[in-house]
């Protein structure tokens, strides 16, 4: 376990963050987790990481933050709603829809489609936001589910909400991504008419790391399966140094 290291982050060769203190957990014990709330990375920016550890080779990594993804449309195909069996104050809601990604750039693109919100109208969020509804005080935004399990472009994640998308450049323009969100809402809200989706345009390393971690978790269930090695883009180390740009899109439906 490494609990002391000099960690530096550079943007375009310029030092923008540095952490030299030992990592300390809340209970006062050393843990191999270093945190630094430095400025958020910029879309399109290229960042370098250097970690110096005594008697070890310098750990290095580089990543470029992708530009925000452009969404052409979000189409809601189906909405089902029925009373919650256990708590009659709530209804279960399932929405199925399609996300249209406008991708005119060449090359491979990677996305993380994680979360959504449901609203009565644009300002009144009724599901997916703890401050307005009391659906679940611990909840975060509603996780989005992958319903095209057999499609190798999509990877459902076990350790993160949502699923990963690898753009295959189909037709060069639109990537149509079917999805589903499932939540509960207060029965008193009779009208749903806004869906807000959040999507991250990720670097390849982000995508591959999270995909490999999910695959590792699946493989661990089978004692005979070969273990899966997490993807790494770290020189002289393991793990991932990567990032993403978030976008959101709101659609009104009847």
């Amino acid at each position, binding site marked *: 376990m490494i609990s002391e290291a000099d960690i530096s982050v550079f943007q375009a060769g310029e030092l923008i963050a540095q952490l030299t203190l030992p990592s300390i957990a809340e209970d006062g014990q050393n843990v191999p987790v270093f945190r630094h709330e430095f400025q958020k990375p910029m879309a399109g920016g290229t960042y370098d990481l250097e970690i110096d550890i005594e008697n070890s080779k310098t750990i290095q990594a580089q990543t470029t933050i992708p530009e925000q993804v452009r969404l052409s449309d979000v189409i809601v195909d189906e909405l089902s709603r029925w009373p919650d069996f256990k708590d009659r104050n709530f209804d279960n809601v399932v929405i199925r829809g399609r996300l249209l990604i406008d991708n005119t750039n060449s090359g491979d693109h990677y996305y993380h489609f994680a979360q959504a919100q449901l609203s009565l109208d644009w300002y009144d969020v009724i599901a997916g936001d703890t401050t307005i509804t009391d659906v679940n005080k611990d909840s975060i935004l509603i996780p989005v589910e992958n319903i095209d*399990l057999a499609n190798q472009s999509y990877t459902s994640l076990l*350790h993160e909400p949502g699923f990963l998308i690898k753009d295959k450049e189909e037709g060069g323009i639109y990537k149509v991504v079917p999805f589903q969100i499932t939540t509960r809402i207060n029965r008193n809200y009779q009208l749903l008419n806004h869906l807000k989706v959040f999507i991250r345009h990720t670097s390849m390393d982000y995508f591959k790391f999270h995909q490999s971690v999910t695959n590792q978790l699946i493989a661990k269930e089978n004692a005979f399966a070969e273990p899966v*090695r997490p993807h790494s883009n770290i020189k002289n180390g393991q793990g991932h140094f990567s990032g993403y740009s978030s976008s959101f899109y709101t659609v009104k439906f009847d």
Partner: protein
Amino acid sequence: MSKRIFSLLLFCFVFVQSYGQQYPLLDQKISFKSKQATLSDLLEKLAKVGDVNIIFSPQLFEKKIRKSVDFDETKLGEILLYLLAEENVNFRIIGSEIVLFKTMLDERYTVNGFVLEKESGEGIISASVVEPFLNKGTISNAYGFYSLTLPKGFHKIKYFSFTSQELEGFLYLDRDTAINKYLETTLTLAEVVVTSKDTAELINIKDNSKEKITSVDVLNAPSLGGEPDLIRTAFLKPGIQSGGDGLGGLFVRGGGLDQNLILLDGVPVYNASHIIGIFSIFNSDAIRSSELYKGAIPSRFGGRLSSVLDVRTKEGNEKEFNASAGFGLMSLKASIEGPLKKEAASFFISYRRSILDLYFKPLTTFANKQNGIDGFSTYLYQDLNVKLNSKFGNRDRLYFSVYFGGDKYSDDRSWSRSDSISTINRLEGQRLGWGNGIGSFRWNHIFGNKIFSNTTLTFSRYNFNSRTFFGREEIASDSLSLEAFDIAQFNSSIKNYAVKQDFEFFPNPNHEIRFGLNAVFHRFNPNAIIINELNELGVSYSNGLEAELFEDLENDLEVFDGAIYAEDEFKLNEKLSGNIGFRGTLFRTGNSKYYSLQPRLNLRFSPIPKLSLYSAYDRLDQPLHLLQRSGIGLPSDLWVPSSDSIRPNVGWQTVIGARSNIFENLEIGIETYYKKMNNLVTYKEGLLSQINAENWEQRVTIGSGEAQGIEFWLSKIKGKTTWSVNYTLAKTIRQFDEIANGEPYPFRYDRRHFLKAILYRKLSNKWTFSASWVFGTGNGVTLPTAEVTLPSNNPEFPNLPITVQFFDKINDYRLPNYHRLDLAVNMLVKKPNLTHKLHFGIFNVYNRLNPLFVTIRESTEEPGVNQPQLFSLLPFLPSFSYAIAF
């Protein structure tokens, strides 16, 4: 008309006379010795000692050979053949006189026919037919047919095989002659393996890189649960290993699980295992013979990279009805065979059924009840072999055979829970099933005396299905109810329809030419179905995937696989022989056609008698791939064909070796091999999610492999005690572009050392004892070098931290060394019309807990510290079985 009848009668008389006749003159035993005498002197002395007239002219002997001889109670005929062999001189008997004559090179005749079991009339595979004085011989084919062409004159012909007693006799050959020879089997004991020392080298000389596994080997070897098993017996041979302790999976010389061509009566079998490989589908009661080619694979075989396991089953006794029945701790068995028409047509039916459900059902019922659950698990495997055959004259025979077998597992559980709000009824279960169905129709025909033809139509099917279901019913106090139903189903099947035409041509004793062609149509159907339904108060919701995946069921993949081949088993001279051939293949899939030309060469050199040095090269391709979710060969693993983007596997292997039985009753050998495999296919690292026929190509990566090794063996092959010890030093690696950053890594079954020993001892006329001990390097495993625990961001598991494991290299760690001792005692009591067989055995005598796999778990002694934890499957297990035959 009368002339034709007379000719026929005369022919029949001569025909019977030529090989039904005894020659007392030649059978009389004589002792005499002489030093450096000419042939004329020796013959005169022989005539005098034997009190027989031998008429010859000294001009017959061109070579003027002088010989020293010392014959002790040797047959006169053998002495004559020995003396005359080098002079191209033979003899005939006229009255009571022996008249010598010069043999003409172009005056040669063929003796052909079938070598058959005396008891049943079934053909004996790989029986030797030898003229020892001319050192000419041949081996019977898969139907017992042989053809041997020799000069005119008297010959001594020996017939023998590994499992039968030797027959020999004198034959006067002055026309093409058909002889069917019936040999008595020595079925029960390991005592007699090679029955004639002077012909031993002829048995071994063609066996480079090949292991013969006889039914005697299988029946006498220590077994698991009293269930003799062909593939488990094969694991005792050098270069052959299983997937794990107790589990099957055949791995030959560093090859993969899917690289073995397993043939049941010539028809490919795609999954030859029961209970995840613990037993094979080959019912030991039905096995007639089996051969495993590890290298030097003849041209007539193709389609897999590493090995060929050619298993032949019994045809049925054409002389009398026999039946047998037996039971052990694992299964019940019964078989019946007999003539449909005496000595012309016969049948064989054999059935085996596991009795594991007798244990599983009460045990799981009891265990479930302890937890307030109703239900139980059952497991069943079964095999049915049916064969019919009929002769039509001396030249034609028809065969029809089918095999059906498979495994079924089911687990059903249901329970209810009630509280003040509601009552919950739950039902859940799982079904697993897999099996093979095989059918074949054959026509054997003999053209002339030298060409054997085999025409075959075959059908083979393997299917796997799994269904997991879950049902939940909730009834609330206010009568509101909810029903949920969930099914996940996975089906896959592979079928093939094939037509084959094979010819065997025996132009002379120095050449056995085989040629033929085959065409196979494969149909693949890999699919998955997922159905979710939730109903409440009339509100229904069904998963849209259902429709999509049902559509996929229609998407069969159809491919064509064709091949032509030719090979010549040749003998250039007394020292140099071999097999040369080629195989040309066409594989059509999608919009692509793949051609290959595969040369095969096997050269043998015998500088001195009983020593064979050999080298072989063979090139092979494999257009079918098994996508494995694990390394052990689960029945759910998916067979897929090469496609437009995935080319067939190609590989080549070379072997160099030496084998000898130069020491009395001992065989010693050494063989080295190097194998290269390209275009190998495997899942990309970790892509374990659902696959189907539409997307499998995107989920695999292409790579290569290498295997090399050296095998030694030493066997005592004759006597009351026989034994064999073998050692293998081996290494095998794999390299895939998208695994381990493209770096080569050890194959999971890369096991550096293997030492195997087996002993058979005949204790009395009734009892035999056998023991086997195996030692091997542990399997390679990949263990994490670091773990990092991350907080979960998944709202479904908010309090469940995720532990991510990091690894340095694949299969860089080793499981502990594997070793195991098995013992068995077999009793055989033969009474008129009744035979009892009793088997007692102990598997894993000293209870070595050989690990099957390893996981990393938190130490119970040191919380917070993770440690490897080993899991074993098969501890000390006694076994018992009993069978009766009548």
